[in-house]
């Protein structure tokens, strides 16, 4: 079984002086990447602000169409998954390879759960015709309700893609953990994916109130 | 050629700018000249100093640069080339800003004319309901305020002689006012890229005396009474914007050429027809009814924009193009 085999000793890349140098560089790099993601989503939040300022009524109306319960459920799922992600990193730091895998799997299940909830939400919207302009066939009081849904699908869709990518990254971590790559002296990829995952969680924590709660 | 200029030449003017024709021009031209000659002065200064340094300090036998630490700092120099340029740029900003404020707020008694841009022509409408296409007539020495909107994509209304320009946007109004300072015929350009006919989306602005303007307005813009039909048609070919899409020399552009058109059999999706007077009239008023195979249904309708006399003129003109 994997826990009894010794971990694979990590070899520091040749252009780094030592393991700490490598870890610090990776961490700085990941933080800068997250800054780019902040600007990426930030631009969409600016579009949201502009749309809200132009047509406040569509947000009031849409508030009643979206299910805040499903949104809240997803929020809880993601926050919990951030916690399990942190626990996965902690387990690696403590050389607990099995627990690392279990926490990673739990995180992944949460991510899948999030996407399942989103699937139900999207299906409901599509069924009722709340879609971007060309396909908008629902009955709305506001003339520009389709603008809201255009932005809703774009922002939550982009977020969903990030969740999907996160699942892919977690699978990669699981495969590497099985081979014994992560232990107390080396858990950099776990930490990096962890940072990414917290960011994905944070974006949702902004999306949820702005789309589901404010009305 | 299709670009026969009927407006005052932009090229032939004293100085860099086209000949001024509005109250905005002196301030703007003054600012331009200030920056231009200031820049030339500075540029020549930089040229001379650099050339001097390169010549004086070039590596050659017998020359060795002075020994000792290199000068890498000189507070006076650094302040001298930071602070004065900053003051200069702020001054230039202020000059431009005040000129711009003047252009932004139309005087209270301005004459309002509405402008509609659409691919690829300019339509004008006066308060008394007079509509013109491709040509706008205004009185001299009178503030005119243009209220503009587009029917499709973003265009931009530009009159170089007046130094005015403003984007013309769909679903919104933009405004630009001016006061012409002399009579004449001046060029209007569309200057926001809008597709195939962008460079043909031209217009003409005629500045006339106040009396002539009143006369013209009363006649609802029909100053072409004396022209024979084919001459009227030839004039309308340019002034109504047909030139944007139809050539008269045989080249097929966005629309078919008019050369040799009359009497030709035209094939379209539902069948075919001979290009006679009725066909041409229908194509002018309801252009998407019979779109000739090989062309796109992009021609806008001119119904209401050309009266019967004008349509007859266009037909007569087309007949002369064998």
């Amino acid at each position, binding site marked *: 079984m994997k826990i009894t085999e010794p971990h694979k000793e990590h070899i520091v890349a040749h*252009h780094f002086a030592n393991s700490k140098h490598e870890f610090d*560089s990776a961490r700085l*790099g990941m933080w800068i*990447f997250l800054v*780019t993601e902040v*600007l990426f989503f930030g*631009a969409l939040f600016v*579009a949201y602000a*502009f749309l809200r300022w*132009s047509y406040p009524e569509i947000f009031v109306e849409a508030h009643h169409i979206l299910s805040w319960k499903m949104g809240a459920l997803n929020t809880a799922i993601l926050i919990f998954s951030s916690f399990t992600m942190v626990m996965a990193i902690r387990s690696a730091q403590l050389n607990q390879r099995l627990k690392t895998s279990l926490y990673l799997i739990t995180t992944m299940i949460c991510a899948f759960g999030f996407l399942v909830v989103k699937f139900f939400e999207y299906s409901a919207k599509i069924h009722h015709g709340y879609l971007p*302009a060309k*396909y908008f066939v629902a009955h709305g009081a506001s*003339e520009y309700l389709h*603008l809201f849904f*255009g932005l809703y699908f774009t922002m939550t869709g982009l977020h969903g893609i990030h969740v999907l990518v996160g699942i892919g990254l977690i699978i990669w971590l699981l495969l590497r953990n099985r081979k014994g790559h992560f232990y107390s002296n080396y858990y950099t990829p776990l930490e990096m994916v962890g940072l990414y995952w917290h960011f994905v969680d944070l974006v949702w924590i902004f999306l949820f109130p702005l789309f589901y709660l404010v009305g | *050629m299709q*670009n*026969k*200029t009927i407006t005052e030449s*932009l*090229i032939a*003017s004293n100085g860099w700018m*086209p000949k001024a024709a509005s109250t905005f021009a002196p301030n703007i031209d003054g*600012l331009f000249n200030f*920056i231009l000659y200031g820049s030339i002065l500075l*540029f020549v200064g930089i040229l001379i100093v*650099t050339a001097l340094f390169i010549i004086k*300090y*070039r590596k050659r036998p017998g020359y060795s*640069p002075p020994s000792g*630490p*290199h000068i890498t*700092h000189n507070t006076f*120099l650094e302040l001298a*080339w930071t602070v004065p340029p*900053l003051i200069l*740029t702020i001054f*230039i*900003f202020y000059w*431009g*800003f*005040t*000129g*711009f404020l003047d*252009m932004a707020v139309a005087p209270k008694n301005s004459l309002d004319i509405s402008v509609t841009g659409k691919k690829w022509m300019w339509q004008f409408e006066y308060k008394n309901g007079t509509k013109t296409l491709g040509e706008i007539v205004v009185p001299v020495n009178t503030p005119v305020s243009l209220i503009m909107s587009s029917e*499709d*994509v973003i265009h931009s209304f530009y009159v170089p002689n007046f130094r*005015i*320009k403003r*984007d013309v946007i*769909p*679903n919104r109004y933009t405004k630009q006012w001016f006061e012409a300072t002399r009579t004449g015929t001046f060029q209007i*350009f569309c200057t*926001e*890229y809008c597709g*195939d*006919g962008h*460079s043909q989306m031209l217009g003409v602005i005629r500045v006339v005396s106040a009396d002539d303007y009143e006369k013209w307005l009363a006649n609802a813009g029909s100053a072409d009474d004396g022209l024979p039909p084919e001459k009227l048609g030839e004039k309308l070919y340019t002034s109504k914007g047909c030139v944007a899409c139809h050539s008269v020399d045989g080249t097929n*552009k*966005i629309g078919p050429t008019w050369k040799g058109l009359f009497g030709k059999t035209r094939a379209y999706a539902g069948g075919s027809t001979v290009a006679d007077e009725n066909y041409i009239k229908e194509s002018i008023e309801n252009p998407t009814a019979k779109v000739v195979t090989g062309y796109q249904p992009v021609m806008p309708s001119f119904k209401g924009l050309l009266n019967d006399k004008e349509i007859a003129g266009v037909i007569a003109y087309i007949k002369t193009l064998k």
Partner: protein
Amino acid sequence: MSESVPGTNYINAVSGIKSWLTTLDHKRIGIMYLLFIAISFGLGGFFALALRLELLNPGQLIVSAKQYNQLFTLHGAVMVFLFIVPSIPASLGNFLLPIQLGAKDVAFPRLNLASLYLYVFGAAFCVYSMVSGAADTGWTFYTPYSSTTDTSVISMTLGAFILGFSSIFTGINFIVTVHKMRAPGMSWFKLPLFTWSLYATAIIQVLATPVLGITLLLLVVERLVGIGIFDPALGGDPVLFQHFFWFYSHPAVYIMILPAMGVMSELVTTFSKKNIFGYKMVAFSSIAIAVISFLVWGHHLYVSGQSDYADMIFSFLTYLVAIPSAVKVFNWIATLYNGEIELKAPFLYFIAFLFLFTIGGFTGIMLASLSLDVHLHDTYFVVAHFHYVMMGGTVMAFLGGIHYWWPKMFGKMYSEKAAVVAWFFIMAGFNMVFFTQFILGTKGMPRRYYSYLDQFQPLHAFSTVGTWVLTVGFLIMAFYLVESLLNGEPAGDNPWGSLGLEWTTQSPPITENFADTPHIIHGPYDYDKVKLS
């Protein structure tokens, strides 16, 4: 690590195309970028030659109006996204940054290779767009024209989107490299100014490019499903697109110019054997430009219908950003004082940049002014202005950098005589093409025009002939550079007698750059303190 075997360098260390395609060596990656960038320049240049040929006279010559519109769109898109944004950072930057820092490689070599692959992938999308009904929107993609035209807009914008990620990853890599990979003794103020400029550029790349990404993504979604955010018919605002677009594209022009300014600092110090005047001012001005560049995008929108207040603020800030650039020019000239100047080919390009960029800068002062810009906006004056700063500026510096670091990258020298001849053709041709366009613009000639009033014909024709002169210059250059690779004189490790750290390595360098980790004692420009043997 491995001993430096005489004759072994990064080029011949491992052979075979697979070793290049899977390399993690920043130098090999830089050379591959250089090849693709040169090809892109040729492609963009071809589109320019074609469109200027059409403009020889007002009537139709070789293409229809729609095809002409596609030509200027492709010229702009290829030149901006495939050539100039990556140009100096991806080729020269990749090659030199680690060496100038005394490091073995960039912080993330695999990310570096990924950037290269993303570049090629994005370029493929753009090429696909070209052959499947090329976009005819202009490289600026203004809505609603771009959301409604029937040409291949989606593939072109997706291509640019992917290229954006290549740029972002390079930016992340460079920032971490500068922070974490410096050799012992290499303090911030001993960094070469080229490194400072790459750092400032990377900050812009990282912060601005994601916004372009989203803008293009929104345009794609708009075309696919019509979300309506930019479409006035659906309740959207087309001017919002312009704001989003220029929020990236203005800082983008500083991505283009800052590395060029970094090259200028290297050239002026090496070829006058002088310490740079005002090192800190030059270094900080790069950062200042990077920061202020984010605050001026609205100067592209003075007549767009944005509020008058916005117009005023943007004009004021635009004047502020001019000052650090002017300061750099004065610092470079002051560096020449009491120097020992050698007029070699790289230095000729320094001179070219100095004058051409200055002209571009002064005309920028004109355009920044609110009232004057009303007349000049969207005319040939703007076209001339940005070509003076982008081509007369960035491209000249890029060429200067290529000629300067050529012996280091390839271990071969090129023909100095041929280089001087090419330089004359390029200078003459460039000014023929673009100075004429200042005149056209002030006279009111609008841009993006397929045909024009007869009276503008002589000036247009002169500008077109200039493009042929320019082409001769570039052809000569291509010839002698290829010739140098095949038959060039072997260059020594330090043919220019420079004090830069990269010149202490072998030409071409070994794969690990340095046999032993260097310990930095002096700065790169301490010509008064250090005597080269």
